[in-house]
């Protein structure tokens, strides 16, 4: 299942499997009837692409359902994978949830190198806790490695 965003006559998609879509309450075929009428070309291409992916099994790197380990926005359920795939966000709160993804340069402006290791460790541990709460295990793994490295150096 997918919802459409139509920008200046261009259709881009937010693709989801039907199960996920139903869980999110997004299964709203009515909203697509007019999309088809107004953008027949784009609509056809989109459906063709979807059918091709389904039949050939070479779908775009879709998040594994249920095993979804990505950050999700607690307000709207949008995932970081959805953003990477579509370039869209789910709701205004996504800006905060995905701040790191949106502006990776803002992430760690090479904090003062003279940040005391004990403080740095405390900070990283706090970030790790938040990352786990967000179920952002990718980020959590990076942070865990950083904490371990810090611990090893100081050992």
């Amino acid at each position, binding site marked *: 299942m997918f*919802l459409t965003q139509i920008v200046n006559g261009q259709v881009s998609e937010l693709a989801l499997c039907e199960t996920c879509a139903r869980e999110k309450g997004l299964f709203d075929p009515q909203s697509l009837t007019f999309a088809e009428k107004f953008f027949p070309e784009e609509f056809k291409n989109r459906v063709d692409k979807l059918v091709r992916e389904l039949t050939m099994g070479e779908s775009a790197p879709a998040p594994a359902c249920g095993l979804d380990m990505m950050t999700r926005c607690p307000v709207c359920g949008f995932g970081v994978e959805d953003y990477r795939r579509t370039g869209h*966000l789910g709701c*205004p709160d996504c800006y905060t949830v995905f701040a790191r993804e949106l502006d990776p340069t803002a992430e760690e402006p090479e904090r003062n190198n003279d940040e005391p290791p004990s403080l740095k460790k405390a900070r990283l541990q706090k970030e790790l806790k938040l990352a786990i709460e967000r179920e952002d295990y990718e980020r959590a793994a990076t942070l865990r490695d950083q904490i371990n490295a810090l611990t090893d150096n100081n050992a």
Partner: protein
Amino acid sequence: MKLDSILNSPPAWLPVRNETGGIVVGTIVRMVRNLPGFPFPGWSTRESRAAVAAKLIPAIKSVRGYKTSFSAEMNTLSYGRRRAMLTRKLLTPCMAARQDGCHVIIPSRRNMILMVNEEEHFVVHAFNDGFDINRSLKDVLQLDEQLQEHVDIAYDFQNGYLTSIPAEAGDGLQFYVLLHLPALTFANMMGQITKALEKLHVNVSSYFSDGQDDTGHLYVVFSIPGPEDSIEQMQDGFETVVRHLVTREMQVRTKLLKDPGLNLLDAIARAYGLLMCCRRLSIKELRDSISFLRLGTLLGVISWEEDEQSVLIELYHFSLAMATQTALAEDTPGSDLNTARALAARDFLDKHPHTFSYNQA
């Protein structure tokens, strides 16, 4: 129905005078805003859209001096009405495809359309005739200020106004100008110009983005919001581009005035002949022919007994009225307007005394 009267009266973006040789038709300023705590329309549920509408619509209605002329949930509008509104820029293509929980509102001044749950929660298009961004910009910013007294808008200091596409977050403003560029089109220069403008964050698309044949040498030129530009820079750059386009069109027209060439004279003569004599006429033929008629007028091939400028404006109105009628007819399967359209075209020429110069070429 109120919509019928709106569809029958001239839209606010149509010029009353024919400035700059009728090259600039009108200006549209788009403003988008979102409500915090609700999914964007592209990621929404029926329930969340309804909740957004329940917050926004009362807020809109409590804006000072605001009166509604027309308001509808999209699921109540037929296909033909949507098409007709698209033709008259009273809906965006995105909005035309929307349904439950999505609303379009036209205030009684009819100088703007307000859309709830378009691509963003709240989208305003403000119109004015001719080339004047400041006028419509003032209208949307005033509405924004008053609206924000009644409803929270998603904003943060780093990104500005938050939008469904992060790259577009910022001022939430975009400028559109409608241009009639028959000379540049006839000189086959539009493709090249479109490519060059992309680098300047300016896009060109055909004017009738309504799925019908895109004809009539009419274009929409619009700004693409860039994250690094301030609104003043964007407006400045955009205005420069539009003025440049107007100059180019003028230059080519001047060149054509000296030497129209047999091909152009032939195209104008064919268009005139078609409108004079046809018994059946498609909407594409009508739009194309009227555009050539306008160009023929500017080149002095056709001269009108009435004030030339007002005839040129009337030709816009006529073309738009025909396109609206055609769109509305889509609700009646099997209807055929080709004969009526031919009659209307011949009638128009009949009622506007003119001479066609056969001497040139």
